[in-house]
């Protein structure tokens, strides 16, 4: 009974998540994918590299990769440099 109540508690209250994006805390909706987040941020997916918990995510996997609570996500791109 207690376990079921707990499950109910988490499933109803867990509709937002906290991740770290480029070193800063960010709140996102539950069940958000990498592709959805890039779209929300206005970042063209062709110009960036996504690193999730120190693993590079290939572009073809953006739509299938769901973000989890406490994920560490880095969005990296080329800039001018020597």
């Amino acid at each position, binding site marked *: 009974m207690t376990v079921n109540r707990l499950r109910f508690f988490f499933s109803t209250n867990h509709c937002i998540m906290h991740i770290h*994006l*480029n*070193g800063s805390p960010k709140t996102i909706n539950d069940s958000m994918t990498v592709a959805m987040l890039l779209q929300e*941020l*206005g*970042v*063209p997916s062709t*110009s*960036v*590299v996504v*690193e999730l918990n*120190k693993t*590079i995510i*290939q572009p073809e996997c953006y739509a299938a990769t769901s973000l989890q609570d406490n994920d560490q996500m*880095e*969005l*990296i*791109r*080329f*800039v*001018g*440099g*020597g």
Partner: protein
Amino acid sequence: MLTIGGHTFNSRLFLGTGKFSSSAVMKQAIEASGTEMVTVALRRVDLDNPEDDIMSALNRDKCVFLPNTSGARNAEEAIRLAHLARAASGSSWLKLEVTPDPRTLLPDPIETLKATEELVRAGFIVLPYMNADPILALRLQDVGAAAVMPLGSPIGTNQGILTAFQIEIIINQARVPVVVDAGIGAPSHAALAMEMGADAVLVNTAISVAGDPVAMARAFAQAVEAGRTAFVAGMGCRSKQAQASSPLEGVLATDLGFLA
């Protein structure tokens, strides 16, 4: 012609893309320089400017992209950046930079050697930025560096070739191309490196922050060309004593006793 990592380069001037006032100026400077290799850095996306993208200003058909690992303080960070660079560029070219001290930006020789070894094993074409240490240059080529990039003087200082003596030893010993990188502040510095027999030079700050970066890019292209031509032509030996350029025989002054 210069070949690095199986790629042939007509131009021996490599260009850094940092610190240009605009993408348009950078683009024109790249064209004026005639370069076929440009370096870029990796940074976190500025989420306030999500569409800002240097790649759209660069022509990858004309230039090899050489991502650097600037910002890395040790081998582990450099290797992480290298993999991100390969994912972003789709190619294995890499300028390896490991600089633990932000004040001097001098490269860490031990971490650089470690990272070179591992990245070569992982299939990267590694061009390590290094201090002008001839023994380290040999060690780096032994573990598979595609070229070595000894510094003329610290990054962005415009001090020129302060390491000429060591760079000459590196050039004489190298089996891989030697690209003099960092500190080249004037076309004359670039020409000197080329006259010494360097295979190429990498210039950024001296061009990007010049009053007219496009004209300066052209000046560097001419200097690199002149220096290379002089090296190939064969430079005369240095001497501490004067050597007359005009014949010593049949001097009129002697015959006529003017100086007697």
